[in-house]
């Protein structure tokens, strides 16, 4: 009977020990609790805190103090939303959003503070009415035998077959204009799929890292990212990629990749940036938050969070708009003709 008693006591001890809970600290659903929860998410998981401290003077600790002072226990949800959005705006990141059922907090200065360099009517006039559409890609051959391709969003799924058929159709052209102005991103799978048709070799296009812990400097070793050549039709002639400030996120990465491909010129304005792969989380009140979690770099390990400069700067002029001409497309045609 003594053996049974010892067995019983050990069993109870083991059950109590293994029943202890692995639990994350949860904040109250109060203005202060929500601000603290948001501050902690960014403090532990946001990937550009140190980089932005160096480049734009971000002080995330000071932001906590500053915005805590703007809280009051009886403030409305709308007021709280505004305070939290203002705190997030300190990060100056287009990938950072706060979502309530009524609104989406955002930072869009990366495009709103700059000229658009894109006129939809003008672009449509170049496409005409007989252009082709392969999944999300519109294309046609311009009068001077230059292929013109418009890819408006990398959320539009485009397969290898679509891209190969398009490039085969354009195969006799002297060059290609790839217009990604206004493309604010989408899936990296589609952006790298398109870029893979412009290289014959596996090329290093950049690096990526991720956070390995809650510290600001807890990052993994940079992992090289390579662009593998497509098994489909591969373009061998000059290419000009048209960019503007709206080229963000996956499109920013696309421009990074294309920059490493041979015979490619980037023309237009600096891209909008957005090189952090965004993650999601949420606050005690149920609002969702999106933030940059994994930084991506170019092939020289430079940050591209604030965009990529073009090889040739070019702006859409008011004079050209008046006469129905897209300055960037015409400049791209000229570049291809000269090559």
């Amino acid at each position, binding site marked *: 009977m003594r053996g049974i008693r010892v067995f019983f006591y050990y069993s109870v001890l083991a059950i109590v020990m293994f029943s202890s809970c692995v639990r994350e600290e949860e904040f109250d659903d109060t203005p202060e609790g929500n601000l603290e929860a948001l501050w902690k998410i960014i403090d532990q998981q946001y990937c550009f805190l140190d980089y932005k401290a160096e480049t734009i003077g971000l002080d995330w600790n000071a932001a906590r103090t500053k915005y805590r002072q703007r809280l009051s226990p009886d403030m409305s949800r709308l007021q709280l939303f505004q305070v939290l959005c203002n705190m997030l705006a300190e990060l100056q990141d287009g990938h950072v959003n706060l979502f309530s059922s009524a609104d989406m907090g955002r930072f869009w200065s990366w495009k709103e503070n700059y000229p658009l360099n894109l006129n939809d009517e003008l672009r449509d006039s170049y496409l005409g009415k007989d252009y082709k559409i392969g999944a999300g890609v519109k294309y046609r051959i311009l009068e001077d035998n230059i292929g013109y391709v418009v890819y408006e969003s990398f959320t539009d799924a485009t397969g290898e077959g679509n891209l190969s058929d398009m490039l085969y159709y354009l195969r006799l052209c002297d060059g290609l204009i790839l217009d990604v102005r206004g493309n604010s991103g989408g899936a990296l799978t589609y952006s790298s799929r398109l870029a893979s048709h412009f290289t014959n070799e596996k090329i290093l296009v950049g690096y990526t890292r*991720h956070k390995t812990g809650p510290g600001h400097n807890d990052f993994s070793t940079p992992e090289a990212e390579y662009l593998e050549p497509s098994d489909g039709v591969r373009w061998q002639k000059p290419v000009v990629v048209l960019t503007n400030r709206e080229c963000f996120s996956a499109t920013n990465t696309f421009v990074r990749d294309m920059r490493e491909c041979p015979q490619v010129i980037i023309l237009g304005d600096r891209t909008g940036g957005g090189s952090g792969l965004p993650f999601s989380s949420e606050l005690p009140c149920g609002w*969702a938050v999106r933030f940059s979690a994994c930084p991506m770099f170019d092939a020289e390990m430079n940050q591209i969070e604030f965009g990529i400069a073009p090889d040739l700067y070019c702006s859409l002029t008011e004079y050209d708009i008046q006469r129905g001409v897209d300055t960037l497309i015409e400049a791209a045609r000229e570049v291809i003709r000269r090559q």
Partner: protein
Amino acid sequence: MAFGRTHQQDTYLSPLEYTGPQLTLMHETMRLTHRSQGRISFQSLLQGTFSLTQNSPATANDFGGRIAYDAGWHYNWKPLPDLRIMAGGQVGTDFGILYNDRNGNNPAQGRLSFDIAASVGGIYTFHLRRRPFIARYQADIPLLGCMFSPQFGQSYYELSRGNRDHNVCFAWPVNAPCIRQMLTLDIPFRRFSLRLGYLSDARQSHVNHIKVHDIGRSFMLGFVRHFTIQSKEKQ
């Protein structure tokens, strides 16, 4: 079959705890082997668990599914004529997914683990109106194993490109305190027994700075059939 509620938290997906209903389907076989004069029993336990949970503000849902299989061997003592004490070990595997319907690039968390567990229990047979009722308690505690986990801020996009970073983690009770407990009562009928029970299944881990708990408590309802395998000579 077990119905109950579960409390889930996975900081890779959200810092909030999600709660909601859980359905567990379980298939168990147990038999005495010929080893050690018939004192070693073999147990096979297949468990499928499905859950639909919600965060406390009711703004997002998690859909969970998990399949676990354990094969166990127990040494059996009979300190009293109607009491059987079992102690032994199990080898098991656990595979599953937890999907959050609102997240972007971190929409789901995969689970895969292999473990060796300690397993203890007791079976007590008593009679009411000359019919044998069987009460059983069993606790299974993983002691040693390995589990998959993404790194703290690693995306599945990176994983899909072949980037690895401490994704196979050593698991033991300090970083993965788990326990499954079952308390059952078998009520005899003509050809089978009705099983009523309580299942408490706590799966937890804290690796790569990601905290996970999935604690389910369910009431079980099932049936038990007893088979006797006879050798040809005896037939």
